[in-house]
């Protein structure tokens, strides 16, 4: 008898993703205080004025995850992470244009 394979269907985090402060904390397993620090550093720019209204995009989710890895693996501090992320995004953009 053939065993039935069950395929998992996850949540797609694409450009339509909009998540709240609580969502982003849960997705990334981080505290709201750390999110606030990242916002103060200009590393994240959620839409909305106060924390209750904040909406984060998939790009921000990715920025947080790269930041957490850079902090853990290379001991880069938050301003350093913000700089690295900006440079990496610029580099990706340049590579894409060169690839045309």
């Amino acid at each position, binding site marked *: 008898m053939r065993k039935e*394979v*069950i*395929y*998992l*269907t*996850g*949540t*797609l*985090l*694409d*450009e*339509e993703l909009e998540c709240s402060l609580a969502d982003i904390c849960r*997705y*990334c*397993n981080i505290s709201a205080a750390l999110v606030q620090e990242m916002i103060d550093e200009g590393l994240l720019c959620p839409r909305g004025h106060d924390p209750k209204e904040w909406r984060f995009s*998939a790009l921000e*989710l*990715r920025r947080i*995850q*790269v930041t957490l*890895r*850079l902090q*853990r*693996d*290379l001991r880069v501090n938050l301003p350093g992470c913000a700089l*690295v992320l900006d440079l*990496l995004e610029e580099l990706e953009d340049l590579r*894409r244009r060169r*690839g*045309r």
Partner: protein
Amino acid sequence: MEFKDYYETLGIKRDASQDQVKQAYRRLARKFHPDVNKSAGAEAKFKDIGEAYEVLKDPEKRAAYDKFGANWKEGQEFKPPPNWDAGFEFSGGFTGADQQGFSDFFEELFGRGRFGAAGRRTSSFRMQGENQHAKIVIRLEDAYLGSTQTITLTRATVDESGHVRTQPHTLHVTIPKGITAGQHIRLEGQGSPGIGGGPNGDLYLEIAFADHPLFHAEGRDIHSVVALTPWEAALGATVTVPTLGGNVEMKIPAGTQGGKVLRLKGRGLSTASKRGDHYVTIRIIVPEAKTEEQKKLYREMARIMPVNPRTS
């Protein structure tokens, strides 16, 4: 089991000072960090460096490792002599490095509960397992149509006696139609197991595309190049163009110049609500004039259609 030359991995001499070990590690870790270095081998290299550092930074582990001597070569078949670690006092635990994916060599010598490894995990508190991240490389075709993929990741688990083991973790995952590079799929509860009955962490899969001989993606849009003869470009033609959804007939307007970009609407990485297009860049191939007759034809063209392409 293959021998790992940790000194070679860090590019240092066997008599390097602890400071030199640290400096070599930091320099290489920055260079090969997978978020920074996008080349194919960077992730494996980064793990090797981390493994080497985990051993060499700790004077006790380093001394035990040094006992094997300098005659072993990287990759050589290796079996540790019995009681190789006798006579060493081991007090240190791991200091934060992510041991997941370290080699069999490391696990045999330093992993299995020796050196206090993972002892902290046997305590009785309850907490959610860690979120895990992994990058998966899929074909553009699979993103275009949506597909199912079977992927195998390496995961570290802790057995009853507190020993760390790595195990393959096989998952069957649905890839939604129109996914693009850099997007994530979040699989709830597929991360590290919870501790003390806590819930599992989540698994995040980041999508990357394998190189394709014809196409490359920029966000939702697909780009490719199609070659035309000068007469097709000048007179107009209908040509067959490969797309991710199969061949399509594309109308080339008369007077098309090389470098012009034509759009095939909706033939990129589209979802129910977002549209991706396919952009075709025209390249004009100049036929070689080999025979006298062919050369004559070019000269004839020069006479009938005098043009100076260098004046705008």
